[in-house]
């Protein structure tokens, strides 16, 4: 049988980037425990709409845990209490009736709040634009099987490539670092032979861009790894640091 719970929500409301924000309290009743967290917010938003109030703005899209659009800090934890889970895949059976849930946006100096829980994460795009690619034009590529990759390497590269770019690593880092995000892309492309020709340049440009955007540095708190919905390992940060250092030590 489906069970239902009653909740108190404290949600960050902020009109726009310039306005001051604050928590507002809402009461929700009869929330099915089979609901996802975002469906619970849908219910709240329908309720607010029917009361003539403005619904809570939040980014979301695929609701399958893969697009990386959703994300909020729930009771102090990015994407909430469930390990390796995006907010859309968090289900209400993880909560108890009578719980008070505090929901606020991902906070970072590099992620300006646009409205309520909706933030601007385009800084992450600019890090990729700085070098998170292999410079190959369409057409004229060699047969796929002429670039052998061991299963082990392919698996490690895939582990790193699973990053969904949600920004939870930044939001959970006490320094607001984007090193898990950046490290994952650098690691993927330095593991695979296709990425080798540009690895020095890539490490330097991506790290430089990361600094420019105002992200902080890693001090081995490991909060990012814990918050990452895809379980991306901080070994990728070590790999990035090695790539970055090597790009200077080994010369041109």
């Amino acid at each position: 049988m489906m069970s239902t719970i009653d909740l108190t929500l404290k949600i960050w409301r902020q009109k726009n980037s310039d306005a001051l924000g604050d928590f507002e309290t809402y009461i929700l009743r009869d929330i099915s425990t089979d609901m996802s967290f975002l469906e619970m917010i849908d219910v709240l938003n329908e309720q607010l709409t029917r009361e003539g109030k403005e619904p809570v703005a939040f980014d979301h899209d695929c609701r399958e845990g893969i697009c990386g659009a959703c994300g909020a800090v729930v009771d102090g934890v990015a994407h909430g209490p469930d390990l390796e889970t995006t907010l859309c895949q968090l289900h209400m059976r993880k909560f108890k009736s009578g719980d008070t849930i505090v929901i606020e946006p991902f906070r970072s100096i590099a992620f300006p709040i646009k409205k309520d829980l909706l933030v601007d994460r385009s800084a992450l795009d600019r890090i990729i634009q700085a070098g998170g690619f292999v410079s190959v034009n369409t057409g004229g590529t060699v047969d796929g099987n002429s670039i052998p990759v061991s299963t082990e390497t392919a698996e490690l590269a895939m582990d790193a490539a699973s990053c969904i770019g949600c920004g939870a690593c930044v939001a959970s880092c006490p320094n607001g670092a984007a090193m898990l995000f950046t490290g994952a892309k650098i690691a993927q492309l330095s593991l695979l032979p296709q990425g080798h020709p540009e690895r020095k340049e890539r490490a330097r440009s991506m790290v430089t861009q990361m600094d420019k955007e105002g992200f902080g540095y890693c001090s081995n708190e490991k909060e990012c790894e814990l918050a990452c919905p895809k379980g991306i390992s901080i070994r990728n940060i070590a790999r990035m640091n090695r790539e970055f250092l090597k790009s200077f030590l080994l010369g041109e």
Partner: protein
Amino acid sequence: MELNSRIPSGPLAEKWDSHRFQSKLVNPANRRKFRVIVVGTGLAGASAAATLAELGYKVDAFCLHDSPRRAHSIAAQGGINAAKNYQNDGDSVFRLFYDTIKGGDFRAREANVYRLAQVSTEIIDQCVAQGVPFAREYGGTLANRSFGGAQVSRTFYARGQTGQQLLLGAYSALSRQINSGGVTMYNRREMMDVVVVDGKARGVVVRNMISGAIESYSADAVLLCTGGYGNAYFLSTNAMASNVTAAWRACRRGAAFANPSFVQIHPTCIPVHGDYQSKLTLMSESLRNDGRVWVPKNKDDTRPPAQIPEEDRDYYLESKYPSFGNLVPRDVASRNAKEQCDQGKGVGSTGLAVYLDFGDAIKRDGEDVILRKYGNLFQMYEKITDSDPMVEPMMIYPAVHYTMGGLWVDYNLMTTIPGLFALGECNFSDHGANRLGASALMQGLADGYFVISTSIGHYFGSERINPVTNADAAFKEVENEVNERMQKLLQNSSGGPSGKVTVDDVHKELGRLLWDNCGMARNRQDLELALEELPKIKDKFWNSVYVPGAADDINQSIEKAGRVADFIEFGEFMIRDALAREESCGCHLREESQTEENEALRDDDKYSHVSVWEYKGDDQPPEMHKEHLVFENVTPSQRSYK
């Protein structure tokens, strides 16, 4: 309306080559003088934008997300087909072509599908070169699996996240072009209309979703890469923001819409479990490679699955279709699941589900092997349902997934508006009446990486395109219309919400109407009823929908309202199309047209055509035109998977 499919002459295998040779080219130094607008940055859009910028064209790309990496292509799980024949199991370009034509129930164009099969191999090479981490064999070569209905192993994959990895590959190519200035990227912009000047598509009007401002952009050609319209049904596997607005607005401006009723209902989705549900989640059909589908033999058998012994289980796909078994195409699998549930043999709390059982596969291959193949899918299933597929069988039910219908395009992917192209799921071209698994990624990337560059070159090389700017009257006129529409969406907002309905209320009503009457099985009576009911939903929307907030602000309610208004208008096209096609083909089962064994019965004499619908105004029904399909290389046969 003139429909010229511009299929090149000559033998099938030489058409694409000779077409490329006969197409006009643009001198590399002149390309920078042409500007192309790309709407949408999924597989088709991101690959097209990157490729055209690499060639030297100026590209303006638009997406409605906060980042171009979020399009719903990212959620495709299973894989991408290519006729590489790496497994030496008898695959070839012709076989992929044949399977795709047959899978589409002989309702697609031979020439387009053959080209798709030809470029499929280049797509894999391209993606590997970008650093897409495809699965590998121990020797380091690319791994393949067989997928939904194919008897050869031609599907390339990256765990259960193939769409994600291919999209991130295209996104990385796009990012490189943004970095070098070839592409100007506009995030959080939703296309509201296309601007046609002197009969040619010359730009778009978009809404800035942060400021609410209505903005105009002009160009020499416009590419719509805006995906499918499955969300017309409210519940579907599509992402929440997936919508028909761009395609529908283009249709209202003169781009004909082909086969709007061709909607793929995917057989393996997590069943519906509550009214609050916002979307349905697909479980990759690669699961059918190892999972066995069954229901209890007896109606109303409520025992838990583990307590139902072998002799009381009906593995209905295996018994009915011995040669394909659990791997029959999607439409066949979906229809059979519905049939079992209609007979009262469905399982789960709603009775609208069948089992997908991994018990035998786990016994045969071991837990490790099964977990390595499907671990992330099982994890996802468990998160949503709180049940572990390693311990008890999954429950699945069909859900709206992919739309084969789309804007009508010629061989160049150009719509009936010159200069307006449609790529990927947004067009109708390659999948006929049913798409095979792992073919959507292939088509999106084929269009974006390999087809559109030839078409754009030819269009610019052969058409005279006069200078136009976004300050021209045509743009101002469309901007005004868009502003008026935004105000109209807010017309019921004064006086508060009491006595009014929300956008979701109306959307759910539309969804139920379409699902019940224009879903997995259709008949004249239901469709005619739906046609009568639809205007009532439209009236309800415009007379009583309450949209909170303002137009000049971040307002997710007004975004939704605009999309639902367009789904309602477009719904009429879907219903009329289903009504006009009095045969069964692929996804489209007309109950009046079945064999004695209740299999879909095609009528090639009357319906071997693409139904192409022309918008004639809000007060008039659309006009249907036909593009007759000619089969010179395959003989349409009644599909049989027995």
